């Protein structure tokens, strides 16, 4: 059932390509239908999922026998959480793209190509197939940004595409090496995980694959594509990019690098953990200094993904749980933040410069946006009651267990996060009265928030609050998933 999420997305893409280009409203409706169907299918699949059933295979065909490649789509708790995230963001993204006027059907065609690729990565349990979907997701990103983006879009798109592709080149090298070194003529994740690669092999294969995927996850110092790319991208693309696509990288780090090379993980985790923590602090510090609203959010994504990576590398079960939860949580929250900044504010005011926004009294003209952003800001800070808090405490516990110094640095990162969030909340919506005089204020006549935006924002807010108050909903999927035999080797090397 869940496999239909992939097929529906690609069918939607094909259908959209055939639509006449003079009818944008039709394109929007088709897009909404596709996204809704995807969401429905995901929900049905989720309800049919048995959390204690380990990996549940959905489809398994022999595809290219000479190389032992199977068309294998399966799902476990971790995959399912990610599929849900994709489904939600896909749906909400369509709502927030309702105002795209130029080449609408093309936009949504690329959009669903990207979504289909994402679903595919999360559901693939054959390494080759996973890589195929991973690559499929790269090209639509380029076009979405280059054709419909804003600041510096061609450069941002190219940088993003090249970085992604370079990262995947590293990964491909690792995959081929692993396949050949294992001797088993198979690309199945489960089978390869059972093979124990020698220590020497793991010593270079692990960092190769992890860093390769880590590039897409925004790992410092290979993160520079992220702020540029996210800022250049149109709102829905930013939401997808920061919300889902960066998670492709982190998910694959877990699914491929950590599952296949657990010894390599142990060898490299202190060093890569240092990179993760640097990303947390660096991202937060840079966010603090940005003049452009969207750049703040872009860098905050780098910082939050640093948390995910820290959790993954913490060598602790709790840290792993927290990392997956944070993937979901940050996906939702990032989506929300970009939606406000991009769609609600920028599309109306045509500026993202904080000092200019300060003068516009947005709190009075866009009260809904102000409230949503404030709530989203608190969620992003890791305030209890929202999904980020539960994820972050688990990651911090994991970090304490792994490398205590990193926990403290990450804590500092959280505090800086508070600072930059408050700074933008203040500048954009609650300007400091001492800094500007009445005379400089220039409130604008802005069009009201549309119903699509409201629905989208409410859905995302609801998700973060529900998971914040009842994280068991996702943890009930995630924790048993780590019990499955696939992670046996990983668990052995990991404590608590």
């Amino acid at each position: 059932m869940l496999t239909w999420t992939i097929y529906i997305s690609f069918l939607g893409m094909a259908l959209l390509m055939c639509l006449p280009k003079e009818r944008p409203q039709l394109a929007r409706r088709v897009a909404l239908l596709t996204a809704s169907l995807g969401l429905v299918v995901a929900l049905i699949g989720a309800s049919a999922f048995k959390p204690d059933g380990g990996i549940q295979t959905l489809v398994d065909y022999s595809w290219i026998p000479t190389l032992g490649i199977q068309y294998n789509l399966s799902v476990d708790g971790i995959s399912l959480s990610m599929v849900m995230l994709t489904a939600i963001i896909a749906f909400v993204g369509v709502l927030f793209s309702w105002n795209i006027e130029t080449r609408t059907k093309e936009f949504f065609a690329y959009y669903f190509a990207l979504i289909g690729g994402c679903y595919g990565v999360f559901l693939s349990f054959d390494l080759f197939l996973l890589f195929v979907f991973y690559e499929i997701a790269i090209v639509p990103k380029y076009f979405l940004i280059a054709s419909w983006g804003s600041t510096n879009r061609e450069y941002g798109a190219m940088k993003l595409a090249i970085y992604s592709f370079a990262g995947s080149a590293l990964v491909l090298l690792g995959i081929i090496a692993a396949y050949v070194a294992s001797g088993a003529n198979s690309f199945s994740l489960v089978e390869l995980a059972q093979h124990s690669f020698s220590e020497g092999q793991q010593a270079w294969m692990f960092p190769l694959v992890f860093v390769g995927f880590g590039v897409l996850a925004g790992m410092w110092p290979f993160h520079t594509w992220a702020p540029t790319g996210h800022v250049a991208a149109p709102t829905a693309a930013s939401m997808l990019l920061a919300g889902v696509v960066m998670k492709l990288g982190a998910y694959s780090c877990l699914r491929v690098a950590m599952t296949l090379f657990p010894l390599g993980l142990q060898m490299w985790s202190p060093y890569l953990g240092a990179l993760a923590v640097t990303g947390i602090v660096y991202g937060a510090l840079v966010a603090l200094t940005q003049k452009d609203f969207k750049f703040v959010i872009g860098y905050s994504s780098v910082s939050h993904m640093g948390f995910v990576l820290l959790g993954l590398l913490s060598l602790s079960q709790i840290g792993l749980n927290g990392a997956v939860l944070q993937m979901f949580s940050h996906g939702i929250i990032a989506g929300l933040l970009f939606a406000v900044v991009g769609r609600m504010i920028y599309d109306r005011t045509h500026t993202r410069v904080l000092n200019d926004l300060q003068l516009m009294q947005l709190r009075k003209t866009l009260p809904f946006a102000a409230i949503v952003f404030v709530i989203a800001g608190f969620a992003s800070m890791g305030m209890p009651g929202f999904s980020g808090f539960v994820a972050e405490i688990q990651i911090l516990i994991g970090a304490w267990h792994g490398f205590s110094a990193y926990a403290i640095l990450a804590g500092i990162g959280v505090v800086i996060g508070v600072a930059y969030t408050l700074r933008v909340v203040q500048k954009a919506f609650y300007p400091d009265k001492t800094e500007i005089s009445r005379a400089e204020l220039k409130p604008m006549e802005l069009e009201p928030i549309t119903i699509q935006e409201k629905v989208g924002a409410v859905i995302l807010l609801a998700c973060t609050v529900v998971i914040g108050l009842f994280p068991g909903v996702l943890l009930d999927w995630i924790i048993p998933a780590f019990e499955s035999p696939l992670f046996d080797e990983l668990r052995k090397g990991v404590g608590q």
Partner: protein
Amino acid sequence: MNPLQFDYSAILKLALPETILVLGAILVLFIDLTVMRGRDAADRSSVLALVSAIVSIIGIFVFQFLPKTGSVLDGMLVLSPTTVLVKQCILVFAALTALISWRVRFTEHIGEYFALILFATTGMLFLSSAQHLLMLFVSLELTSLSLYVLVAFNKESRASAEAALKYFLFGGVAAAFTLFGLSLIYGIAGSLNLETIAMNLSGKEPDLIFYVAVVMALIGFGFKIAVAPFHLWAPDAYQGAPTPAAAFIATGSKVASFYILLQVLYVGFGEFAGDAGGGHFESGWQPVLAIFATLSMVIGNLVALAQTSVKRLLAYSAIAHGGYALVAVMANSVDGTAAVVYYSVTYGLATLGAFAVVGVVEDQCGDDSMTSLAGLKERSPVLALCLMVFILSAAGIPPLAGFFGKFYAFTAGVKSGSPDLGLIWIVAIGLLMSAVSFYYYLQVLKQAMVLPSAKNAPAIHANPVVLLVIVLVAISVILLGCFPTLLLPDTGVAVGVLSSG
């Protein structure tokens, strides 16, 4: 060999498709001289294109009914299922080339044009099935000479003439190298048949002369497949030649040349491969190929970055892809054969398609610079989409054929050194260069799909036949990418395995 003892019926049976092609060439000339006399060049070309295509397609079908194995004349014509597959693919390319020449206007000598295409195809067919040094050389020459002339066919363009001259001169020198190398081998091994050569040389300690011979032969082949450092003719040829001719060189000729390279190296010198794996170097032809491959991958991609002409860019990308395919050749295994066949065919399809699109644009806009592609999405959405398919396949993006080709080639390369992953270093270079190549491929796509068209850019109306061909090729690229098993030869029966009669 006593000619009177030849079993002509056997020869004819195995060589039926080639015979049909020759007859077809004559038929084309005949029709042109008689029936179509006095007609307009465009009309003549459409009819003759159709005839040529039909002839090629008949050839494809004939292969289906022929025995899939067999050998005549002491290895001059050796068939195996893989060889038959390769020959069919060459015929497909011939047909496609003919069809994209529909209504060409750059020459009045239409009949000669199509006849030359068919003759070149014949040469390629014989080349693929040759396991005899003499046959190899003769068919190589037949192919080359036909192609030299085809390149020069656009008499109105100086570039065409210059390209042809360069191609001819380079080709002549390369042919000399090949011939010299092959004769040295004959001298050393005492036979012209590849299998006999292998038998005679087996177990012997190779000496300097042998290496010289092999290297010379490789130089000659290297020219034909346009790998660095023997690539200098390629960009000019691709850019200057009339589009269908360039397409044909990049496709059919490459497939045949790669395949014969495989034959010679695997069947003839399988033992002397040596090892280019990191950590345990052994001299042989594998390290030599490693040098060619690395140079091609690096030079091809880096120089392509600087190109403003799409055709030259495609040429350099072809050089790079030659490098990638060489990695598969280096594998010296059954996987290597399968990978090379798949790669050269699918890359050929993508290149043919890309050339066709560029050709259409060039016809209507006058030049083949990247900027003339601007706004193709609005001017002709179908062409733009197909171009995207071809370019992304070349870039190696799944689920298109180019991805699997590269993947298989690299995997075959790494597998061959197993269990210690010897050739992984060259695969690493290959992947790195692929990442570089992504940049220039995206530039092309940026022009076509993202940028708006220039103010007075003319609309593009492609000839319906050409358009149909382009679309069909695009579909096949997608299909072969999703279901590679359609094209993978049954690797249980590899080239030259002792199965011929």
